[in-house]
């Protein structure tokens, strides 16, 4: 590793100072003591920094010289190189090919008998590493090793028959009974990518099984068709169609590529991949017989055995990665390669892997992504401006590197139900790409934003739209908030809840959260500055309704507030609140006195806490007894009042509503269920007059509550498991010592026969932890049930319900969707509510599955037997998400 490279930013002086002191010493020493093995591994990993074609033979020679003593270092170096640098795999295959042939050093020196070729020894050792990845089901590593093996098969180093058998083993996974989608998908990719690289050779061999493998993948993909509708980036509520514009499903692409290869009898080589090993002379199969890959069995998934019994459901580990993957397309096939072609598929596979592997260092990741073309056949990407011109080659694809990179990064960001990494990673990665090459990456980013914006009118999924807002605002925050807003001015005529206008409003709001009102206001064109549905004319702030001197409760409010400002003790404030309860004049309102008192107390607490997040924390922490007195755990009315008072106080700064709700849950003033109940009872602000809509703001509050409940279960589970393990260990120790030292341990004097189920009752800590776990899973189930019920009642009201949303059934009708240009706000808000219901089902599907029977019995009781389109649509979505409809 090169320690000279300054990986971290920061002031030059700082680094200088540190280097001259202690850190300089440690660096220097480490370099001095870098072992010969380490040096060798590094030279393998760094292969090709200047010119891979020339470096491969040189490295091969060096390895042959070092072979005898450092075989493990060589194979480990290659293993690291292959699994962490997928773009260099063809060159490592070339390296192995040279090592597999006769040694260039001259074989008949001192040793009497000719030894096996170094390539064979390396592969034998490499295989152990591969087996290790397989045992852990470390899918990406497994798949990249298969790339390597596939290239080696083409290079005649690995026997075609054994390669075919290896791929077959992965295809066999697809026929397993009850194979999970995630497992099937990964196995299918292993087999498919192997075929894409080595299919031509396998096809020609006697043991060709390409048709069989393709059929297995095809069958698996077909069986998963219905779940696709729920994770498409463009929502189609009306039709159940699985084809969608602007996106390609991963396994659909796999099938398209493989079918095309099959039809052409694997005539098309992967045009963008270099195959440097083909330049070498043929191997003598007698002197260097091809390596036979041992046969394998893909190990089954580990079943968690430590599941805890919970109230009414299985405590299965939360399994994600169980959905088809739709990759968003932003550009034409002439700009970025079609994923349904072999080159397009493999290039995208490389990009996906690189973005995944280099997640630990987004800056290096950006650099490596922009250097990618150097590992491809010339003409794959359009040469950079000022670079050497390549003569007009009709076969050159000339794709635009930056567009491909941005499309891949955004593709990750927009994966549904959620990307494999935090969204902010992809956002930060794009920022780095822009910093590295602003003039080439910038335009690709701009085009992507415009494309996504135009998709908003065509049903861009609500969650994708939410992430789009997030990306847009964080990106702009890193680049001076410079966006050409004026091109969207014509859209200001749309109803304000049209997705395009919602986007603009939310993007501006998010930018303001990261910056401040005046800054963002000034960055907008005049037409937008004056539109309260784009940005409010006032900066966001608290709205203390009792501060108005003419308010009838102004004095009561002031009496509490002055105590709080003077940092009076909690009991003094409680006394004052109790006094108010008996003295306050309530003649002019029909609000209950308790509700008024709660509102006064909460608003005055929020008022002293309104200066900053810390002020707010200090306020609630100091007056916890007051808060607990206002709402006992079972007083749902009281808790709703607290939430309502908060929402009223911060109605001009919705960011704060989320922050306050989170801490109210954290301090256990309210429970997640209370928040869900509050949202579905009165989302629309003042009173329960209209239908309930769930928009991004309500969704974020809902998600906050659901995640809190789920997170608590996660913590409680960990605690129980840790305590159990501790107990098991101490029992094991007691056993090991034959019971002789039991007196020293925290066990009763005599040695009891040990039974698993009894042991739990012996440890009071464990008992407490188990109790906590039980009540938290109960709360979890209740939050999920309440949310489901809420969605059912606002999307499929039954006759007699207080609020009837007539649009609920129209917006899921195909003809109505075609006429969406004339939709009003109510229709768009209902459409968005549908979108969040779908997202709720797919995002929380691992949890919902655990309780699917109980939840659906309760929540669907009202619409049981209904055949209305809304009831059917609700149940269909539910069935797909909970795996009841394959």
């Amino acid at each position, binding site marked *: 590793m090169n320690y000279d490279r300054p990986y971290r930013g920061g002031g030059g002086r700082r680094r200088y100072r540190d280097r001259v002191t202690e850190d300089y010493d440690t660096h220097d020493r480490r370099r001095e003591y870098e072992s010969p093995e380490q040096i060798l591994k590094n030279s393998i990993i760094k292969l090709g920094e200047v010119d891979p074609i020339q470096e491969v033979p040189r490295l091969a020679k060096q390895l042959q010289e070092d072979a005898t003593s450092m075989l493990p270092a060589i194979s480990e170096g290659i293993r690291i190189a292959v699994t962490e640098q997928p773009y260099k795999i063809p060159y490592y295959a070339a390296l192995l090919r040279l090592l597999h042939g006769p040694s260039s050093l001259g074989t008949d020196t001192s040793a009497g008998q000719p030894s096996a070729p170094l390539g064979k020894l390396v592969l034998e050792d490499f295989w152990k590493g591969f087996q290790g990845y397989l045992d852990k089901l470390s899918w990406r590593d497994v798949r990249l090793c298969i790339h390597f093996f596939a290239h080696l098969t083409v290079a005649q180093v690995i026997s075609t028959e054994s390669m075919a058998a290896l791929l077959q083993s992965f295809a066999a996974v697809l026929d397993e009974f009850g194979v999970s989608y995630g497992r099937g998908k990964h196995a299918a990719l292993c087999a498919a990518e192997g075929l894409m690289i080595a299919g031509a050779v396998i096809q020609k061999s006697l043991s060709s099984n390409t048709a069989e493998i393709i059929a297995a993948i095809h069958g698996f993909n077909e069986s998963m068709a219905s779940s696709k509708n729920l994770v498409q980036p463009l929502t189609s509520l009306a039709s159940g169609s699985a084809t969608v514009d602007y996106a390609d499903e991963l396994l659909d692409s796999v099938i398209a590529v493989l079918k095309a290869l099959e039809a052409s009898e694997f005539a098309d080589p992967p045009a963008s991949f270099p195959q440097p090993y083909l330049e070498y002379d043929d191997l003598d199969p007698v002197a260097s017989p091809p390596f036979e890959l041992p046969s394998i069995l893909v190990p089954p998934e580990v079943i968690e055995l430590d599941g805890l019994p919970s109230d009414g459901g299985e405590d299965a580990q939360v399994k994600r990665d169980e959905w088809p993957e739709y990759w968003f397309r932003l550009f034409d096939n002439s700009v970025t390669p079609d994923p349904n072609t072999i080159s397009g598929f493999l290039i995208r596979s490389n990009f996906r892997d690189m973005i995944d592997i280099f997640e630990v*260092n987004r800056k290096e990741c950006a650099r490596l992504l922009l250097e990618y073309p150097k590992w491809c056949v010339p003409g794959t990407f359009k040469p950079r401006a000022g670079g050497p011109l390549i003569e007009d080659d009709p076969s050159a694809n000339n794709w635009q590197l930056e567009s491909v990179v941005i499309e891949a990064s955004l593709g990750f960001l927009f994966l549904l139900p959620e990307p494999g990494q935090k969204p902010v990673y992809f956002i930060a990665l794009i920022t780095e790409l822009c910093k590295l090459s602003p003039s080439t990456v910038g335009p690709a980013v701009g085009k992507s934003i415009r494309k996504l914006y135009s998709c908003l009118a065509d049903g861009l999924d609500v969650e994708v739209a939410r992430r789009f807002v997030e990306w847009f605002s964080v990106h702009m925050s890193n680049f001076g908030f410079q966006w050409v807003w004026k091109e969207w001015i014509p859209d200001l005529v749309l109803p304000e809840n049209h997705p395009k206008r919602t986007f603009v409003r939310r993007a501006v709001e998010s930018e303001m959260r*990261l*910056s401040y009102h005046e800054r963002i206001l000034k960055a907008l064109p005049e037409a937008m500055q004056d539109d309260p549905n784009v940005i409010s004319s006032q900066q966001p702030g608290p709205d203390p309704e009792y501060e108005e001197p003419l308010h009838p409760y102004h004095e009561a409010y002031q009496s509490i507030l002055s105590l709080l400002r003077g940092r009076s003790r909690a009991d003094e404030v409680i006394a004052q609140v109790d006094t108010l309860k008996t003295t306050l004049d309530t003649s002019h309102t029909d609000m209950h006195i308790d509700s008024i008192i709660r509102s006064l107390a909460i608003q005055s607490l929020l008022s002293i806490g309104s200066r900053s997040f810390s002020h707010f924390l200090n306020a609630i922490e100091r007056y916890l007894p007051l808060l607990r007195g206002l709402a006992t755990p079972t007083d749902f009315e009281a808790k709703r009042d607290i939430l309502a008072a908060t929402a009223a106080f911060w109605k001009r700064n919705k960011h704060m509503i989320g922050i306050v709700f989170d801490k109210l849950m954290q301090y256990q003033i309210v429970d997640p269920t209370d928040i869900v109940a509050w949202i579905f009872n009165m989302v629309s602000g003042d009173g329960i007059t209209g239908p309930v809509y769930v928009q991004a703001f309500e969704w974020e509050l809902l998600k906050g509550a659901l995640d809190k409940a789920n997170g608590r279960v*996660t913590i409680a589970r960990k605690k129980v498991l840790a305590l159990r393990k501790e107990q098991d260990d101490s029992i094991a120790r007691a056993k090991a010592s034959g019971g002789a030292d039991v007196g020293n341990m925290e066990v009763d004097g005599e040695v009891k026969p040990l039974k698993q189920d009894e042991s739990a009752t012996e440890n009071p800590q464990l008992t407490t932890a188990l109790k906590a776990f039980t009540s938290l899973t109960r709360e979890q189930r209740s939050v999920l049930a309440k949310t489901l019920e809420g969605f059912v009642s606002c999307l499929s009201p039954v006759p007699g319900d207080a609020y009837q949303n007539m649009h609920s059934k129209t917006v899921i009708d195909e003809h109505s969707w075609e006429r969406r240009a004339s939709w009003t706000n109510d229709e768009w808000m209902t459409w968005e509510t549908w979108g969040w219901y779908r997202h709720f089902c797919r995002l929380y599907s691992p949890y919902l599955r655990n309780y699917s029977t109980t939840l659906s019995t309760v929540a669907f009781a009202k619409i049981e037997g209904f055949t209305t389109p809304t009831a059917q649509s609700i149940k269909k979505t539910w069935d797909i998400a909970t795996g009841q409809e394959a």
Partner: protein
Amino acid sequence: MAHVVQPLDQPSNYKDSQTKLDRKRQYDFLSKSSTLYIGNLSFYTTEEQIYELFSKCTSPEDGGGIKRIIMGLDRNTRTPCGFCFVEYYTHAEALACMKYISGTKLDERIIRCDLDLGYAEGRQFGRGKSGGQVRDEHRTDYDPGRGGWGAQAQLERRREFEERYADAQEGPGAVATGGGEWKATEVPSTTLKRARSPDDDDDSSR
């Protein structure tokens, strides 16, 4: 995992120069830390702006979240002096910030995140002779975001900031904890005393 590139979530050269822990112990603490030191903030950046950016690294579904934010203040003037601590509930969230937020902009300044040993009383104040951060005493460049003379444009904003922390306290309990782990609540009707759990002890020592 990373042999080809250097991970960004490793502890850097940053350290609390006044800690009494030896290097080994410091390293052990950092490898579990859920607190970050954030540097190079504008004096005018608010806790809510910080909350917004840093909430993008939270993992609430794993029991995480932002526990608290402690704004660094000038010892004498009680105004923000360009640093803060962000404390999460989990270590993984702090690492995520090192990877995805450190080196990006907040309030149009490139901020720096470092794993921190954890907030201790008194650390919310600047350690420079003037009351602010030491680095601002040696700074020779012009920096409007950090009290440079060009801050006229933000006069309104500035006044707000100057008053905000005027009530900042010192000493034990001056800084809120942000809320601890979930605990079973007492059911008022029963006479059973609340069982003490180890967490209760933790709280009293904070």
